[in-house]
């Protein structure tokens, strides 16, 4: 082998240059900082100022009103009641399911798992609409059956109540407890329980003294996430709560935007809302931190499955009941309503596709909403992953001052309910001379701000798996900073980044809580279209639109997944130079 002259160094005697990468790092940092300022920090600052000022003068009047007026105190109490019951019932459903799936020989465990996933992925406002069709006091199918068909009015159930609201909400939130509890139960090695038994503890004693304490942090943590999610859902609280006069924080804040809008009071209420959310999340972090001892010992653990004998059919019946209530009933109901000429006991005698024709071809909002929602979801997912990659990369691969602060700032939106994000954006963008209110852009900003934490976490995890030596060897081989990123970092991080993309896309395409305050007739989204049509009282077309929505969401997710997996030439990258 012949050798070239020497290294490409500087002329003799000159001082070395500062690496070009340092300047690039600073530029990336600046982009990330400006983005977070526009998306999160400035809107929050304006929200804060708006809550303590009136026409430019400081005042505490808004907080006084929010915390003393009976209307708002009731809304606060209702939100707390809703959240608490939802959390408790999420444990009541999620924990037995988790135990059945990870610790017993119950049949069809995969089916139980899929049930939980579908329940989580179903937009809660669709579940709410389905249950209205079954349990509204007069027109609900089940209520009619009980009252008119069986002559048992005592067996009717009014869904327009706190109980109805809790029922609908819990069907969406129990998967949080289920998923966390199942993974905790999986990671408790059988040897821990067997050690207790060999020392003389019986089955119940072992469960109470060993298994319970080991998984309790995960269960509580799941319940708190259920709480935070439950109180933030605008759709179900409006659909179920408003007719039943059960006002909650999101619906009260929403009502404050009726003419004349009360921005100051809405801001103060929003901050109260944030306070509750942040307290719950702080508790959740504490519980989850204590969970670490399970996962440490969890590597390659061997969970113990219990043979239930004939009892397993009883457990299975419970799982099936959850499936029927959380998945089968809502979807069958929406399907049935959407094809019935008039919803009622005899709906099956007169089936029609008229409502689909209407929502797809006559109701011109539909196509606009579909296009907007697809654009917004894809745009949000792409933007958040880009921003998340920048932030994750700065955090892990540079030594720039302020990188931890950047990381923390990007996680702030976790504590912001959707409607609060909308209020904050309105406060900010109505006060700067950039007319984006009422456009798709402001919704895009709202979504991007809301979901950036998901993308930051995904990007962080994706980059963390890449051994820095893989990047360093590209540098020493002669590739510059940008080339290294494009040729090594990005391809290796791609699966993780794509997972983050999907993680944002799925909630974004069904977003309602922030959109409801930000949309205009031109920037309407799918979820808002469903909600608006529902408000007109046209139950059958709403059901048709709901089904269309679900088809589009499912198709989009399937397509995105296929695109994300395709195009990869290389075989899977396990092992082979990756850090353990």
């Amino acid at each position: 082998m012949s050798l070239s002259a020497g290294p490409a160094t500087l002329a003799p005697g000159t001082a070395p240059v500062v690496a070009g990468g340092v300047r690039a790092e600073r530029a990336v940092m600046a982009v990330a900082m400006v983005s977070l300022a526009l998306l999160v920090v400035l809107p929050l600052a304006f929200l804060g100022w708006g809550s303590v000022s009136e026409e430019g003068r400081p005042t505490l009047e808004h907080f006084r009103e929010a915390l003393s007026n009976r209307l708002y105190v009731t809304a606060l109490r209702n939100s707390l009641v809703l959240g608490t019951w939802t959390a408790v019932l999420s444990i009541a459903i999620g924990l037995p399911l988790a135990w059945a799936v990870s610790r017993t020989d119950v049949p069809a465990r995969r089916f139980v798992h899929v049930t939980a996933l579908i329940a989580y992925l179903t937009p809660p406002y669709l579940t709410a609409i389905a249950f209205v069709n079954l349990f509204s006091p007069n027109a609900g199918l089940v209520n009619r059956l009980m009252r008119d068909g069986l002559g048992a009015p005592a067996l009717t159930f009014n869904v327009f109540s706190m109980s109805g609201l809790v029922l609908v909400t819990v069907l969406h939130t129990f998967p949080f407890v289920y998923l966390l509890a199942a993974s905790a139960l999986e990671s408790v090695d059988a040897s821990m329980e067997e050690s207790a038994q060999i020392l003389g503890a019986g089955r119940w004693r072992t469960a109470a003294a060993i298994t319970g304490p080991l998984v309790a942090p995960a269960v509580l943590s799941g319940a708190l996430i259920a709480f935070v999610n439950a109180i933030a859902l605008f759709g179900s609280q409006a659909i179920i709560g408003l007719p039943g006069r059960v006002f909650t924080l999101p619906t009260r804040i929403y009502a404050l935007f009726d003419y004349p809008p009360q921005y100051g009071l809405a801001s103060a209420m929003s901050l109260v809302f944030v306070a509750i959310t942040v307290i719950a999340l702080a508790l959740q972090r504490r519980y989850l931190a204590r969970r670490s001892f399970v996962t440490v010992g969890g590597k390659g653990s061997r969970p113990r499955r219990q043979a239930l004998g004939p009892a397993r059919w009883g457990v299975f019946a419970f799982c099936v009941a959850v499936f029927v209530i959380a998945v089968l009933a809502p979807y069958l109901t929406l399907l049935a309503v959407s094809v019935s000429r008039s919803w009622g006991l005899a709906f099956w005698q007169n089936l029609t596709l008229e409502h689909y024709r209407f929502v797809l071809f006559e109701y011109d909002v539909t196509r606009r909403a579909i296009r907007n929602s697809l654009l917004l979801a894809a745009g949000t997912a792409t933007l958040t992953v880009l921003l998340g990659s920048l932030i994750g990369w700065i955090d892990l691969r540079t030594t720039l001052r302020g990188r931890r602060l950047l990381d923390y700032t990007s996680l702030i939106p976790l504590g912001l309910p959707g409607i609060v994000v909308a209020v904050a954006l309105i406060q900010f963008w109505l006060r700067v001379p950039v007319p984006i209110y009422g456009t798709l852009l402001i919704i895009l900003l709202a979504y991007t701000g809301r979901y950036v934490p998901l993308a930051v976490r995904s990007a962080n995890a994706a980059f963390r798996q890449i051994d820095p030596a893989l990047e360093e060897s590209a540098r020493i081989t002669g590739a510059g900073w940008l080339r290294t990123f494009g040729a090594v970092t990005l391809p290796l991080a791609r699966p993780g980044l794509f997972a983050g993309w999907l993680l944002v896309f799925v909630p974004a395409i069904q977003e309602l809580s922030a959109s409801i305050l930000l949309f205009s007739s031109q920037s309407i989204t799918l979820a808002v279209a469903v909600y608006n049509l529902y408000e007109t009282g046209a139950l059958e077309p709403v059901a048709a639109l709901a089904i269309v929505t679900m088809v589009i969401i499912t198709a989009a997710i399937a397509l995105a997944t296929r695109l994300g997996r395709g195009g990869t030439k290389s075989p899977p990258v396990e092992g082979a130079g990756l850090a353990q």
Partner: protein
Amino acid sequence: MAGIAIDRVTKRFGTTVAVRGLSLQVEDREFVTLLGPSGCGKTTLLRLIAGFMAPDEGAIRVGAATLSTPAGVVPPERRGMGMVFQNYAVWPHKSVYDNVAFGLQVRRIARAEIRARVARVLELVNLAGLDARYPNELSGGQQQRVALARSLVVEPAILLLDEPLSNLDAKLRERMRWELKDVQRRTGITFVYVTHDQSEALALSDRIAVMHQGELQQYGAPREVYTRPANRTVADFMGLVNLIPARVRRPGPAGAVAVGGEHIVEVALPPGLAEGASVQVAVRPESVRVGVLAPGAAVGFGAVPGKVVDLTFLGNLVDCHVTLGDGTRIRVQVDPGQRLEIGLPVSVEIDAAAATVFMEGPEMAPPTPHAPRPG
């Protein structure tokens, strides 16, 4: 010219000093090993040479160009060096061919030439025919060769290697050791090689730089570092060594010490030692001979009487433990053909030419940063 001059370089991480005022001269085409226990700063020094970090003090020059000062560094991609990482860092998403070709593609070399040069370098590292494979289809040794080929194909003037053999099994390690040495001879590239394995360092290097706690302890040819360690740290790190307590009887280069009571052993003494001073005689197990002593017989001049207390058969040799009259226990390498038994009285002879005398107490011997290049 690709000699490397490291000039009083210091690197700190927070309050810990990883490299402390270290100077080192690597000549063109030389194979230099940075040797030391983990945490001694050898990998930090290598990464300073590569330009992955800037020194806090001092400078690094290659030829006439200054590459690193506290004020700034030439970035790694503009140094024209190659580097082989401990875990190979073979890109898992690129085939063998693409891994090796990457550096040439970065340099915008014509496709036909890339193909030819990749083929040639794969031949050189015995990987011909595996170009389409992906790293996860290769053994550890093959991945190691891909990493080596990837560094060599761009024809660097300097190749940096960070414990490149430590993840291989013993047999493969020995073979790759030989291949590395062979490649270095054939290409004339300057190698800077980091390892904590002293046998690897002895086998490969033109010169060894022994490091400890961020400082250079000794810099010299393998034989010199092994037989004439500059201090106890080096002696200890370069392999098994007996540190035998002794007293000076006659100072000077033609000196003598008393060992195991009052048995005189003639050995060269460092300057500055008075008669009666306590010293330690450092001698390796293979530089001590034992002979069976007939019952009642006295030892000859220069030998010390002792008793065999332990014998371990290791195949090609026997590890023999002997206690001297004053209780000092030493280890001796014995040929398996020599018949010894536990409890047998023996005479112990120390090869004075292979022994070094250190002063008792804290480490005193100064490091030798600018030792001349061996013959």
